[in-house]
């Protein structure tokens, strides 16, 4: 049986990759995918710790995270669709109307 801490380590690595993705990509859709990576890294932590404790609570939280991620993806992609119609671009550097 693999130790729980190995799963947590993999989760940390995935979270770091997702963070770098959010910081470095310009395409808003890819930034969104990196955010999904972050959510999944945390999900892995939840499931691993739930298994370590022999409790189901962590898995229930993962269920909620998935529901929130689905809601977030639907609204976020609708916003991007509208943004593309308005600006013909999804480049985060060119959408600066709200930038101070």
């Amino acid at each position, binding site marked *: *049986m*693999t130790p*729980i*801490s*190995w*799963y*947590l*380590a*993999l989760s*940390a*690595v*995935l*979270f*770091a*990759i*997702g*963070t*770098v*993705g959010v*910081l*470095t*990509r*310009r*395409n808003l*859709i*890819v930034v969104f*995918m990196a955010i999904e*990576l972050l959510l*999944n890294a945390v*999900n*892995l932590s939840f*499931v*691993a710790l*739930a*298994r*370590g*404790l*022999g409790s189901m*609570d962590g*898995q*229930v939280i*993962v*269920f*909620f995270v*998935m*529901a*929130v991620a*689905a*809601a*977030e*993806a*639907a*609204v976020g*992609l*609708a*916003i*991007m669709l*509208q943004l*593309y119609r308005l600006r013909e671009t999804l*480049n985060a550097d060119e959408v600066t109307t709200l930038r101070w």
Partner: protein
Amino acid sequence: MSIPLFLIFAALTVASALVVIIHRNPIYCALGLVSTLFLLALLFLGLEAHMVAVLQIIVYAGAIVVLFLFVIMLLNLQVEERAMVPRPLIAVAAAGGILLGALVLVGIAQTPLAAPVPVHADYGGTEPLAERLFTTYLLPFELTSLLLLVAIVGAVVVGKRRA
């Protein structure tokens, strides 16, 4: 899950996660995301979270990524010339990411974790999950349904063409 199997899955997961953030073509990024999510579902199976693994494939790999692919193809996004921020900023971001990962890894290495306790045969199945969902977590569960309703209405209102 045995250790060699875990190492193979972990390496593949990290590789497909890197494809998501590095590839210039958004379609390949989405395919990398699908692969990452499938491999995570396999890791969930290794942790005896059967129901969550199935949900991961149906909801994440099935619904959410299809939504991503749908939008990418609808907008006909091509390979980008300038997919990334300028090079010095990439270096700073990568250094920050490595630092973040290293910090968390040190934290994990220093935390004593007990060996996993033995669990029942039905651990991670539909029944114990549903039992928690409809007793302890009933209020969050109902709020989730409200959240999804609001998200659907919001997505339709935002997404529709102005008349």
